[in-house]
């Protein structure tokens, strides 16, 4: 089999996951996209292991071992990630990540719901937030 097939598939899957991470609003969908990216990497690891174990007579099977580790770490990640999302949801009542803008310029940390009435701020950010929290 040509190595290009799995490599290109992995690249495309990775970019699909990338798009999901950047474009999705719900934090859990973002986590799913992260899973897609991790799996793209796994596909690469497996494909290159299959190639190198023949060509370079690699008996360590490092690609497969790393793929396994990645799967395990992905599982741990998804657990922690979901726990964080749940905690955020419990505190904020939402899991939309574009509403979690506590680090925005001029954000009032004590009162996340009343940014519009807060200090006079650069109009776009404050306006968007007011819209989002209204």
């Amino acid at each position, binding site marked *: 089999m040509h190595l290009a097939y799995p490599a290109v598939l992995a690249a495309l899957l990775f970019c699909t996951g990338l798009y999901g991470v*950047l474009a999705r609003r719900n934090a859990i969908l973002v986590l799913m996209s992260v899973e897609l990216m991790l799996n793209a990497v796994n596909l690469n690891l497996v494909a290159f292991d299959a190639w190198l174990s023949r060509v370079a007579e690699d008996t360590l099977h490092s690609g497969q071992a790393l793929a396994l580790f990645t799967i395990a770490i992905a599982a741990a990640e998804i657990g922690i990630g979901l726990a964080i999302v749940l905690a955020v949801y419990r505190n904020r009542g939402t899991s939309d*990540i*574009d509403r979690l*803008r506590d680090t*925005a*310029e001029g954000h009032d940390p004590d009162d996340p719901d009343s940014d519009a009435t807060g200090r006079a701020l*650069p109009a*776009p*950010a404050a306006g968007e937030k007011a819209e989002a929290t209204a």
Partner: protein
Amino acid sequence: MTTTTLAVLVPLLPFLGALAGLLLGRTAPGFARPLAVLPTLASLALAATVAARQGGGGPVDAASELTPTGSVPIELALHIDGFAALTAVVVGTVATCVQIYSTGYLRDDPRYPSYAALVSLFTSAMLLVVYTGDLMVLLVGWEVMGICSYFLVGHYWETPEARAASLKAFLVTKLGDVPFLIGLFALAADAGSFRITRILGAVAHGGIDHPTLISLLLLAGVAGKSAQFPLHTWLPDAMAGPTPVSALIHAATMVAAGVYFVARLLPLFEASQAAMTVLAVMAAVTMTGSALAALAQDDIKRVLAYSTIGQLGYMTGALAVADRGAAVFHLLSHGAFKALLFLAAGVVIHAAGTNSLAAMSRMSHLRDRVPDAYWTMTVALLALAAIPPFSGFFSKEAVLGVAEHVVTGHTEHAPAAAGWIVLLAGLLTALLTAAYATRLWLLAFRGSGTEAPDHGRQPLTMTTVLWVLAVPSLAFGGFAFRALPDWFDGHDLTPTLTTSVLGTGVALVGGIVTYATWRHTTAYAARVPLGAVAAHPEADAGQVEAEAIASHEPAYGDVAHAADPADPGRLLLGRLHRHAAVGFHLDAVYSALFVRPVRAGASLVRFLDREVVDTYVRGAGTLPRWLGAAVRRAQTGNLQTYVSALLAGTVVLAVAAVLVATGA
């Protein structure tokens, strides 16, 4: 101790006293008075010793060069001839009198320690100027005097008059000091040395290439320091300072420095006919103008200030006809009687509670309240008016005699024109001097009206000093004119018959005319009530004077004169009175020539700074602000935006790295 050591100690002792006074004044005020009086007194004793040892013989010269200072060496040099020795004695005497007088005059003043220390420093600087043989060292003393006069004239800095006067004194003298400094450098460049002896040697051998230019530059500084026309305007305003300071500045120190400086370098000025003529014109304008102005002043101290300017005009006149002996002779006798006049005026102001002659002329029995001041001031005024046999007569006759000497054909040292100018102006001024002296005496002591307030006897420190100074005012001239030529250049200082008769005659005419006018005008005094008296008659003299100065303008409408129809000067001067009262509008001229252009320049600079420079500054600030606004807009708090930017950057970097690695 050698004469040199003693001479070094003369300026050093007051300097150390000033230093100690400034250091201890706040922590140990009890030491302030001894620290003020004793070093000055010791300095006087040493100066007298030095004078006795020098004895009019050859000059004592000593020099030590501390460190090489470039092409023209600066040396700590002494050059004590007869002029220096005697001038130092007068400076020491007047300074000692002033210090003793001040202990009484400012006895309750909280700033007395710093005041006394500054007076000591002032004295020390003047003694340095007198003794030094190096022009750079002289310049140090010269400038120290300038700054001390600034502080001392501004002693009552609570009053706006004193603040303005101190600034004016400083700025006007600095206006002269700049050309003075340039002249000094030019002189040193020509002569190759700052030593007075070497410069005079170079002058004698014709080694000075630009004597006219240098002389005129130096004259500017002399005019500023010695209050000669046109830089004299600071001196009348300096009356806002305490009376002892006025006495010190006017009698012996600051204003004498300019005359003394010219006397020292007279051969240099003689080398330029133009400079001598300028000096003569300056002296003539100064003495006549100031005498006219003195006749119109209402403030007793301003009368004396203008008289100082006039007497300094006599001195520069004597220098203009190339006789420094006469100039320094007049300097010495004037130092004595002018110090006496000022100190006595201080007593009178304290007793009367006002500095206005118009108010004094409406008080009777003022002379009974202050008999010491009355008698000593009478002596001093007679000396000022040059009535024989008082000392002023002899010194003034010396000046007039020298001028007559030049006029009659002895023009080897000075141009005949200078002689004529000085002689005629001197005679006219003698007339006017007698007139304003008489006017001062009549208005101050022959007043009629309400009885002067009685504040008890004046402090002994103040009255004793008056009698001490009355002695030289009375007798110095008569005894000295025979002995002084041995100390000076050897020129005869004996009064000549012509000028004596002429001078005394015009003086008597002036006095009698003024008396007659006064008899005529004094009847008006009762009809026009005038007067403002200090509110704290029991306070010390300094405070009374400060209040008198501060209240003069609100009471009479002007700081200098009062609209008093009983004033004989008004009748004598006629239409000139209005102009003379304000010093012939010279302040207005200065205001138009210098103050307004400087103000306009300042507002232009302000405009340029605010509107032009700041525009660039604000413009420079705008770009970062815009950038900051743009960057702030990027801080949305949205993680996805951040990660998008991060990954976009990563992609760009990765592509760039691939391109570079593949050599594309």
